[in-house]
């Protein structure tokens, strides 16, 4: 069973993502800010991380950078899922080193497809 870590500060959004992926047979773990997410990622070593960008304490970009800087977490596939959908946001996401940059609102299909793709990598 593949372990997926979801990092999202909006609890309602976090719940629906969790339910969706749970329904498709993934082992879901959650955190509500970048700092907690980073700690959990290091101890859990998930197969995939799905993260928001704008969050308290530590934002998604800082967390990604910290993960990539640590050999144990550097290769974990990483998907951004965010409401920051303006052109400059998407461009920033594209060069951030994340494997996918998905914007809200998202369809379950697009999320699941991205998850499957990056897990194969």
């Amino acid at each position, binding site marked *: 069973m593949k372990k997926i870590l979801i990092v999202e*500060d*909006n609890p*309602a*959004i976090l719940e*629906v*993502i969790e*339910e*969706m992926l749970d*329904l498709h047979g993934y082992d879901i773990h959650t955190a509500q800010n970048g700092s907690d997410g980073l700690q959990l990622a290091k101890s859990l070593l998930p197969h995939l991380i799905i993260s928001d960008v*704008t*969050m*308290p304490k530590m934002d998604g970009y800082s967390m990604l950078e910290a993960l990539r800087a640590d050999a144990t977490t550097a290769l974990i596939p990483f998907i951004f899922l965010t*409401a*920051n*959908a*303006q052109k400059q946001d998407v461009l920033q996401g594209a060069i951030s080193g994340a494997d996918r940059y998905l*914007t*809200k*609102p*998202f*369809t*379950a299909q697009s999320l699941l497809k991205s998850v499957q793709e990056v897990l194969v990598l």
Partner: protein
Amino acid sequence: MFKLATLAQDPVFRIMFQHATIGIMLADSNGFIVKTNDFANRLFGYEEGELEGQKIEVLVPDTLKMQHIRYREKYSKKPKEREMGAGLDLLAKRKDGSTFPVAISLGHTKMGEEQLVIAYINNVTKQKEYEERIKQEKETAQTYLDIAGSMVVVLNKAGQVQLLNQRGEEILGIKEEHVIGKNWFEAFLPKKERTGAKAVFNSLMSEQGRDVEYFENLIVDSQGNEKLIWFHNRVLLDKNGVATGTISSGVDITEQRQAEKLLKESQLKLEDYAAALESKVKERTMELEESQSQLVQALSKERELGELKSRFVSMASHEFRTPLSMVLSAAELIEMYHANERYDKLDRNVERIKSAVRNLTNILNDFLSLEKLEAGKIEVNQIPIELSTFLEELHEDIKPLLKKNQQLLLPSPSIITIQTDTYLLKNILINLISNAIKYSPDGEDVTLSINNDNGQTIFAVADQGIGIPETDKEHMFSRFFRAANAENIQGTGLGLIIVQRYVNLLGGHIDFTSEEGVGSTFYVRLPTS
């Protein structure tokens, strides 16, 4: 020829004759020289006795000989005394043929039967030269006068014209000969000038007035034209130092004065023009500066609008996407659970959709409220309201918004009723209280207190939340503004502006105190009596 025999024997006579410093010569009636003295011999360059017996014409230049002979014969017939220098320019010839001017006086006497003529002869070369020089100097002086650029007038003691030079003739338009002897002041000065000019003349004459060397007055020429003359006066004195008249040189400064006047006028005009130009330039500069500042204002307004627009787009993009995402995800979950026949999960997701839609509605309401406010469409309807009932209703509205273990602490007000607009007041307080809840952590209570101050009611909403950073405080009432520490918390950045507008509509005032990490208190002061 007559021979002089015995005359020379007398020694006194000899001395007188031979040592005279004038040439003396005796001739007979036929013109033969009888006797010459030493002076005459030296004068004509002959040895003693050499001239005796020669015709007197040997001493006359050849060209004048015939004339002299005729003159001599006429004289012999009717001799008379003739004094020296009586209007005759005579020329004599020396032995060497050179000539020189002489003055001659003649006398005659009879000696026996013989008529003798005695001539006394003076060499007048020096006098002639002197006369010539005087004449030349006079002519030179006249030339000076005539070519002088100024008019020269000489007046005698009585003020009568003694001299007028060529330039003077030109200026007066009259010949000198018609002017000589006329009274200068009567003839050539306009009446109005006479008294002053005469006074100057008299003071010059009286020795005290030597300081009025320069004087300017009008004269009238023969055509009746007035001319302004600038005179330089000098008193003429006789050998005893008594004033005999004046000499004045005058320059016609009529045109110069006119030119000066014109120059002065044009200078003044120029100065006026320059001043006018300067003030025009100043005016224009001010206009320019004004329009520039208007332009700058318009530009900054434009820029502000542009910034506002980009802030709105950014806010709308983010704030709408979250609830929309929730709606879509919940709907998809409903499909999934439906397919899996997990009907127990449906209600939960329907509730999520409703909540997200409420959230969207709130955002829309914020926009609409602001739009309405800005269009002036909100009416204020102030009525007396019972405070306890109002607070109960408010509490009911707030309850669903509270976080875990969080309470809204309400006062039991001392005031019973207040006069205000219920709708606006409720909106103000719900907005402030929901902000306090939003920016506070779980378990931290929010307090509403109400106080009366001089007929005004003060509502205070206090929290122990994240507070407002010092640098962001001044922007709290700007549209779409979010404090640096609130970026991750949902919000449109419109709530406080709407509150402020509502407060203004009620004639009140909003203020706040806050410390980052400690909490904020918002004060609304309303006139409610």
